């Protein structure tokens, strides 16, 4: 397992390096916005990766409610945490992009707003996981994870309609509106690199979550043996 992890880690680093080249050097400069637009190659793949991770969280939550496996719960936790991290990247790169281009830090455009709501939903999930006490938190979190993901399409529909009613400047000018094919190449390379990175992060966090639960159980068992002065 460890060797596989190391191999993948090296591979990911290479991918990230190549994707960086693609984004910064190889892809053509955007006509109107100039080089600032290159942040798009981090903004968009991060959004997709975050969404994918939240979907994994949904599947893991369902799996947990069906079988109550500790692994399902660990996966749900790991995917939510890494998902929120990538979602944060989207929310940070948005304003960094918007400020030089349009002179404003934030616009309530459809995609950015939806991402913000998504972020809020999964941060509330993490708050429940980390600050609620009691042995049944995995069950409660799984329920919340399912609710949250089911809400996602509704969030997108609602905000998109709201924005067609009350339009605002759109950040991702490249939204399906004829991206140069060389730009798509850069997007895809970065997507692959970020997906690999996310996979590695989730893997590490997953193992760590499982280990910490095993530790807790061992503690309980050990304290018992200590008190009765016997070993089973």
């Amino acid at each position: 397992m460890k060797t596989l992890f190391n191999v993948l880690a090296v591979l990911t680093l290479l991918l990230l390096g190549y994707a960086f080249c693609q984004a910064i050097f190889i892809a053509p400069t955007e006509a109107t916005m100039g080089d600032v637009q290159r942040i798009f190659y981090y903004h968009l793949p991060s959004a997709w990766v975050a969404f994918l991770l939240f979907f994994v969280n949904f599947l893991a939550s369902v799996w947990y409610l069906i079988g109550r496996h500790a692994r399902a719960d660990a996966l749900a936790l790991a995917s939510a945490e890494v998902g929120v991290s990538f979602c944060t990247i989207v929310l940070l790169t948005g304003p960094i992009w918007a400020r030089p281009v349009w002179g404003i830090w934030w616009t309530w455009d459809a995609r950015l707003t939806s991402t913000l709501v998504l972020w809020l939903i999964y941060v509330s999930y993490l708050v429940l996981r980390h600050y609620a006490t009691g042995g049944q938190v995995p069950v409660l979190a799984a329920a919340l994870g399912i609710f949250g993901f089911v809400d996602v399409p509704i969030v997108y529909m609602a905000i998109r309609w709201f924005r067609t009613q009350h339009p605002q400047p759109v950040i991702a000018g490249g939204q399906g509106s004829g991206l140069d094919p060389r730009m798509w190449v850069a997007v895809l390379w970065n997507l692959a690199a970020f997906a690999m990175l996310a996979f590695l992060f989730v893997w590490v966090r997953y193992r760590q979550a499982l280990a910490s639960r095993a530790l807790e159980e061992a503690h309980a068992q050990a304290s018992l043996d200590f008190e009765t002065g016997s070993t089973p």
Partner: protein
Amino acid sequence: MTSAPSLWAITRRTLAKDLRLEWRSKDAINSMLFFALLVVVIFSFGFDPTAEESRKIAGGLLWVAILFATVVALNQTWTRELRNQVLDAYRLSPAPPQALFLAKTLGNFIFVAILEVLMVPLFVVFYNLRSVGPVWQLGVVAVLATWALVVNGTFFAALSIRTRSREIMLPLILFPISIPALLAMVDATTSILTGDSSPIFWIRLLAVYDFVFTIVGLLLFEPVLNAE
């Protein structure tokens, strides 16, 4: 022996029991009403709109006030079940958990509806409101919107009583998920009041939201009820 009790019979019985208990103690209603009144008054200090402006913002103010008041009620209705650990008695019985969920949601719906009936005239008076669009549509929006708030609210309130910091946990997990519904109810109300646009899309969205989350809530209620 005895036949298995039907879902609807248990729901009805539990709802009747809850209404009776609320009538005798008035826990939820009193705190909710007072809180809502406070919110309305405080908002009126923050905003001093003209008639035209007030039509644009009244929808938002009203639903935010109702949202906060609903959270107060939600905590109360489940807290009652924790006194004397009486919730255990329900869990031990063969009664289906879904009936408890439905009964609590319906009960909360009734309480919030009472609140709305009392608050809307207040709003009309304070902000000199007159609707440009048809008023019956406001009724439809109110029904769908209230159900949207209480169906998820009841579920998350049940979820948060199993956590230690329950008063803060409920709004924290309820608000983000309710954002699309809030958007819908506020914009629908505003578009009806100002007559600027059609609320049909929002009404449809609220209907979808209500349907989806009622189903999900019914499906997931049992593990949450028995999480101990």
